């Protein structure tokens, strides 16, 4: 850096430092004048705290308690500054006249708030003790390694997919399998000469897939599809999560899939037959799951709504595959359903 550049940088830093001090002064002045009510900033903190994840009941409660502690003190000194001098004088005079009464009331309110907070802390201790003794009923964790392969033998599905991928008008590029678990189907695709990679949110499953030499990374389906470039995939196989997602998540997933697939690319949804899922999931897991499998006809309807063509349903034992092709760029746009299934966007 030249001497001139260094001098310029120092001058810029000094200037901005001065501006920063002026801004600090302005904030102090406006706070004193009551332009910036502290209650508004506090409300912002409180509101955002409501959206924070509740990792555990205790974490959330402790956070809420801290917030309540901060809010349980009322300031006796009211802001008396004003941008106009006579107003400031009026505020000061009123404050002087009423100070004894305001202090009297505020002190009692503070005592009351402190007592309430003490009760809440005592309750917190008691609830914590209870939580230690009682096992809370929590929804059963979803098995990390769901069987994602369509039946015991993936060969028929691989054949079906290869035919689509090599059809005239099919674009070149990679095929993504989400969620691929330990990669049995992915391995079969790679073995059939398909340039495929996989994602899976499960640590153990994805590590096993990587150890067997497959291109697999740990990622969730929605996050990954949201990051993949537009129209960059030649094919997409969705499985696993398709059985347990909520309906809204499934629709978002299909919307993102439509964005990520190139014109003419192939989309395949491998799901479990609802009857088979009811039989194998068990009553508790079935009742508490956020979503339940859709029938193959429903998937076919949803992908058709998004404008996919050549929709084909293949039974695969207790599972099924719905395979479809994204319309070519010059094909007419589809008519989206009444709820706008075709209007998915990353934004």
């Amino acid at each position, binding site marked *: 850096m030249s001497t001139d550049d260094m001098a310029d940088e120092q001058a810029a830093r000094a200037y901005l430092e001065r501006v920063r001090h002026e801004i600090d002064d302005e904030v102090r002045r406006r706070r004193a004048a009551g332009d910036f009510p502290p209650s508004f900033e506090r409300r912002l903190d409180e509101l*955002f705290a409501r959206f924070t994840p509740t990792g555990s009941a205790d974490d959330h409660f402790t956070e809420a308690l801290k917030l309540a502690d901060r809010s349980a003190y009322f300031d006796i000194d009211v802001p008396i500054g004003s941008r106009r001098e006579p107003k400031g004088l009026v505020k000061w005079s009123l404050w002087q006249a009423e100070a004894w009464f305001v202090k009297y009331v505020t002190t009692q309110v503070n005592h009351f708030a402190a007592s309430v907070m003490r009760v809440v802390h005592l309750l917190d201790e008691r609830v914590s003790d209870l939580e230690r003794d009682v096992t809370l009923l929590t929804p059963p964790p979803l098995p990390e390694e769901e069987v994602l392969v369509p039946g015991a033998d993936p060969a028929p599905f691989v054949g079906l997919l290869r035919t689509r991928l090599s059809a005239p008008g099919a674009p070149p590029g990679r095929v993504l399998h989400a969620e691929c678990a330990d990669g049995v189907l992915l391995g079969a695709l790679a073995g059939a000469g398909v340039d495929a*990679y996989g994602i899976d949110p499960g640590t153990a499953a994805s590590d096993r897939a990587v150890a067997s030499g497959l291109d697999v990374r740990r990622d969730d389906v929605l996050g990954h599809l*949201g990051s993949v470039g537009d129209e*960059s995939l030649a094919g997409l196989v969705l499985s696993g999560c398709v059985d347990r997602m909520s309906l809204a998540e499934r629709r978002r997933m299909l919307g993102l899939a439509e964005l990520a697939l190139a014109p003419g690319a192939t989309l395949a949804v491998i799901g479990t037959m609802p009857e088979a899922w009811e039989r194998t999931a068990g009553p508790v897991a079935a009742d508490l799951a956020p979503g339940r499998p859709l029938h193959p006809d429903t998937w076919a309807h949803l992908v058709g709504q998004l404008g996919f063509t050549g929709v084909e349903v293949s039974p695969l034992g207790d599972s099924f595959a719905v395979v479809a092709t994204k319309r070519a760029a010059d094909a007419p746009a589809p008519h989206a359903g009444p709820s706008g299934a075709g209007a998915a966007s990353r934004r």
Partner: protein
Amino acid sequence: MRPTRIDQVVPSFGGRDAIGAHVLHLRAVLRDQGYESDIWCQGAFPEVRQQCRLLADLPARARPGAWWLYHLSSGSPVAELIRARPEPKLLDYHNVTPGELFGRWVPTAVEEADAGRKQLDDLSHACRFAFADSAYNEAELHALGCTRTRVVPPLFDPDALRGPVDRQTTLRLREERAGGGADWLFVGRVNPAKAQHDLVKAFACYRRVFDDRARLHLVGSWMGQDYPRALVRFAARLGLGSAVHVTGPASEAELGAYYATADVFVCASEHEGFCIPVVEAMHLGVPVVARDATAVAETAAGGALLLDDMSPMAVATAVHRVLSDHAVRDNLVAAGQRRARDFTLERGRRRWAEAVEEAVRSSARPPA
């Protein structure tokens, strides 16, 4: 002995992220220096798959004359794989965001960050030389006992954003601007370490006190789902649903449109090892207001208004001052553009060419 080949390794190779772009530029520098050079990765995004080789194809035996250059920004099994290889190794440290900043929002990121810190410790001793994006990153390497280091900012091309901008995005942004109000912009992955929630709070204050028609654009890919969705819900509850846009990832042309229409770039990030978007904003003449945290002050070097007090009202007041006081704005833009000239792609390539030669020279013998 001088290597004949320097191969780069990155766990996941994407075309849109900062490290992906840096790795591609660096490969060109290495090849220009006369080295053979490839990019190896565990997984590649489809759009850049043809640009790289997969580690699954890596031969088990050592390759004579070949060195590795590993890019570390998070924990990955790839770091273990490279550490165990017999070839000499170089490290490019982009910093690892501390896991606690992701908190309960992205539990997997906490695990990866913790693993990354551990791998940094291991690799800093196993590598012959380490590059750091900033002096801030270099200090972390020194603290681990790694002494052969050099600060070299990442390679990126700020002029690429001056290219044709996305027409549709520009039209939409212009339409919104027609109704008046300032446009706030932040570019970066949507995650709690970047503290976009602090931006929403500051923006809410700004709308309430200074400009009730302003808009906030949060551009960047999502890390997980919980935090970005919470931001959207938070904004909606504040009545700002139509004023706060959490856009998701943007192409270069779309990003160019956002920078071209922004009135101010505001960064509340709690952890940055360098922060390329700050340089992009300065380069494109957008005034920058940022939290004075980690490496941001070093990157901005007098080209941005840095704040200690990140209370919402303080940030709102600072932005208002920048947007309403022409002298402050003009000074800030001029200082930013002056600073951004240090990061042109041409200068960056020269810096990296020198740095690689220094690393090769000083790595003639392995570390003690």
